[in-house]
């Protein structure tokens, strides 16, 4: 019995459920020395905006216990240059390309971006990053169910491409927001984006990253992410792309068992650039060892503890 690793996210057929998380894999080129990128289930690009963005002042990253803070501030070349310079390389890989997009000022920018990207056949799906903690806003779209519903509904009308909504963990109830995204027609939800956090240099009495507050990622946040996936899995019907501190096959499996249809590897790419492949083969081995034919046989199949 050969385990079947393929999964479906909206209209997307993935040969395996292992993708790389937005912002942690650049536009893929930086990783080409480390493994055969064609083996990935899909690539999610660094979030792009309409105009080019310089991003935030450095220092932009610091380490925290089993985690890191970042405040890149969505540095990106802007959509036009992205299409011109980055799509050709991505196209050659022949695997699904999911383009993450965000608005700098108002939600109408999503409309402009989706209209433009909808025409590009090399793009397989669009991820709506409504959860970036590094744009100095009072409240994120994904911190409010109604705003999430409104945004996703508006975008849904503009494209037939698979739409993924990326959610913020900095909320009272992430499953309510996920439900709003589902009801508005999102094909899937991706969670979690980073937790907002801060770290202080106590000798200089300044924040360790220039923008004061940044996004916490890495193994430290994994229990929070797994819990949010599980909570959301029990509330919605569309697929979940799970992420947050996946470092190895074991932590990847936690996300499947908690209810993820696919997973994204984020911070782990920095520590072990070839980790996605290790997870894909680990997944095969786990399925073989446990006589599992399809991934759906473990998705959300968490049982109660008992003796």
């Amino acid at each position: 019995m050969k385990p079947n690793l393929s999964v479906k996210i909206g209209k997307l057929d993935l040969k395996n459920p292992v993708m790389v998380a937005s912002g942690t894999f650049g536009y893929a080129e930086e990783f080409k020395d480390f493994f055969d990128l064609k083996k990935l289930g899909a690539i999610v690009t660094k979030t792009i905006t309409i105009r080019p963005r310089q991003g935030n002042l450095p220092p932009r990253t610091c380490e925290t216990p089993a985690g890191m803070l970042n405040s890149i501030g969505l540095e990106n070349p802007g959509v036009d240059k992205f299409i011109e310079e980055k799509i050709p390389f991505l196209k050659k890989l022949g695997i699904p390309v999911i383009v993450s997009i965000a608005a700098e000022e108002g939600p109408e920018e999503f409309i402009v971006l989706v209209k433009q990207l909808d025409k590009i056949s090399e793009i397989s799906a669009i991820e709506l990053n409504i959860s970036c903690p590094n744009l100095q806003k009072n409240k994120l779209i994904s911190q409010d169910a109604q705003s999430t519903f409104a945004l996703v509904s508006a975008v849904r009308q503009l494209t037939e491409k698979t739409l993924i909504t990326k959610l913020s963990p900095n909320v009272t109830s992430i499953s309510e927001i996920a439900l709003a995204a589902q009801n508005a027609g999102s094909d899937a939800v991706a969670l979690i984006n980073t937790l907002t956090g801060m770290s202080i240099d106590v000798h200089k009495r300044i924040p360790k990253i220039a923008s004061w507050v940044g996004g916490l990622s890495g193994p430290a946040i994994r229990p929070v992410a797994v819990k949010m996936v599980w909570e959301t899995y029990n509330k919605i019907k569309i697929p979940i792309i799970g992420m947050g501190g996946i470092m190895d096959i074991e932590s990847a499996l936690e996300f499947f068992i908690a209810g993820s249809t696919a997973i994204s590897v984020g911070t782990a790419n920095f520590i072990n650039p070839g980790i996605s492949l290790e997870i894909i083969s680990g997944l095969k081995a786990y399925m073989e060892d446990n006589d599992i034919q399809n991934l759906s046989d473990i998705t959300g199949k968490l049982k109660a503890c008992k003796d």
Partner: protein
Amino acid sequence: MKNFQLKAKILSQTKIKDNYWYCELSALQAAKIAQPGQFINIRVNDNFDPLLRRPISIHGVSGEKIKIFYCVVGRATEILAQRKKGEYLDIIGPLGNGFNYRGGAKSKEQTILVAGGMGVAPLVFLAQKIIASKTLVLIGAKTKKQILCAEEFKKLGCQVKFSTDDGSLGFSGKITDLLKTVLTQGISSRIFACGPAPMLKAVTRIACENNIDSQLSLEEHMACGIGACLGCVVSTKSGYKRVCKDGPVFSGRELIW
């Protein structure tokens, strides 16, 4: 240039003095192509605390060996120093763009290397690659005890001058003031520098005032080390650039300090 992720065997691990350690790694593929100014990114253990790799300059290369020279300043470097000969280190490298040292110096002109503190680390490797007889090395530190690698540079045939903040060795004062003096004494065509940011900033200005090319090796906090996260940027005339991928060596002309 290609990057490799390797399990590099520790061939030697020696405490030079105080917190300074010298270590040799077996990493053939990386050693073969390493250039002065490039670095390797080291995972010091298998746990998630510390989580990130640590960038360390390539201090020298011979055969399969990559040599590093480092100072224990925090947790990761402390763990690194505890790793023993015979063990394996997970490294990625050689990373970044090194010094552009080819061509350069005309017949009578000398090359100046300015090394502040641990800044000696990549410059020793550089000194091996350029014509030593025409190279002047300035080494600065707070005090005599902290002057590093002087013998290495001398053995290579470089002329070496010192500066110490407390005057315990050589010029008494800042290395950048020594640099100014030196520049009035001979014809210099280019400066390569590595050290703390304020020193590099001053070197850039001095080089500019004297109309000399300068190349500076910078440091920024790195998450990925391979150009993917956009974490380690510095301001240049053409916008932010990544220290890990576009640098760590930048021309004084492009930097905005």
